[in-house]
C-alpha cells in the first residue's frame, strides 16, 4: 500500500547529481548532506560540498537555522533544474549535522539501497 504522505527525500550525494543521473529530475524529492562552503544572506543560497562535488541549496523557506561555513548540513527538498541545466535544491527541511560520520553514512546508504533493490526484486518474482 502506498503512502499518501509527503514524498520522502531520497538520499543522494552531490556527485550523484550529474545531469545524466536518474536523480536529476525536476521536482524530485531529495535529501543531501554536505559541508557548507559558502552562504549568501542576500540570496539565501547555500553551497554545500561532498566528495569534491558541490550543490546549491535555496534556503529561503528555512527558519531557525544558523549557517556556519565549515559545518555539515543536511537538507530535504525538491530539485529545481535551471535553464542552464544547473540544479538547485529548494530546501523545506534543514539541519546542522556536525559530528556525523560521513564514511559510515555513505557505506550504510549503499547497504540500504542494496537491500531495497533485493526486496523489490523478490517482490516482482
Amino acid at each position, binding site marked *: *500500500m*502506498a*503512502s*499518501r*504522505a*509527503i*514524498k*520522502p*527525500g*531520497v*538520499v543522494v550525494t552531490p556527485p550523484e547529481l550529474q545531469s545524466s543521473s536518474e536523480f536529476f529530475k525536476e521536482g524530485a524529492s531529495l*535529501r543531501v548532506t554536505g559541508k557548507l562552503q559558502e552562504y549568501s544572506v542576500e540570496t539565501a543560497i547555500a553551497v554545500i560540498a561532498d566528495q569534491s562535488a558541490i550543490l546549491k541549496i535555496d534556503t529561503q523557506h528555512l527558519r*531557525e*537555522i544558523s549557517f556556519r561555513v565549515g559545518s*555539515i548540513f543536511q537538507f*530535504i527538498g525538491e530539485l529545481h533544474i535551471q535553464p542552464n541545466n544547473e540544479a538547485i535544491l529548494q530546501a*523545506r*527541511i*534543514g*539541519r546542522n*549535522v*556536525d*559530528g*556525523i*560520520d560521513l564514511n*559510515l*553514512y555513505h557505506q*550504510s*546508504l549503499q*547497504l*540500504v539501497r542494496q*537491500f*531495497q533493490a*533485493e*526486496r523489490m526484486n523478490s*517482490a516482482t518474482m
Partner: protein
Amino acid sequence: MDQPSLQNTHVKLLGFDILSLTPSFSNSSIFYLKGNPTSRTEILGVITSREQKPDKFLKLTIDDCTASITCILWLNQHSSHYFSKRQPTTVRVISDLAKRLAADVQIGKVARVRGRITCYRGEFQVTVSDVVIERDPNAETLHWLDCLYLARRCFGG
C-alpha cells in the same frame, strides 16, 4: 532455532518495509512482514510535517529516506470513550505525557517513534506510544543498520 516472535515487540523497520506489510484477514491489529506477524514498530527519521488539532490529535510525518510514514499521537484522552472507564488520575497522567510528547515534535528534528501499526483508509500509519527526539547526527545511520541487520537475521530478508 525457532524464529523469535515479533508480535509484542517494537520491531525496527525501514519505512518502505512498513508500506509493504500485509494486513491479516482475521485480526486488524496484526500485519505480516515476510510471513512474520507483527503489530508494533519503531521507526526513526526526520519530522517533515506536523498538524495538531488541540485536544484531539497530533499528526506527524516521519521521513527515513525510504518512505514517509504518517504517525498519529492521540491527545483526546479526556473526551475519548476508550478512557472513560479508567481512573481520572491515570487518564490525566496519560494525557499530560501525550501533551509533552507533542510539544517535543517539531519539523526538522529527528524523532524515534514507537507505536502500533494501523491501517486507515488504505494507508499504513503508526499510532504513537512514545516519541524521542534524537540529537545524535549518527542516529539515523545506526537505525538503518539495525533495521538491515534485523531484516536479514529475523525476517528472512
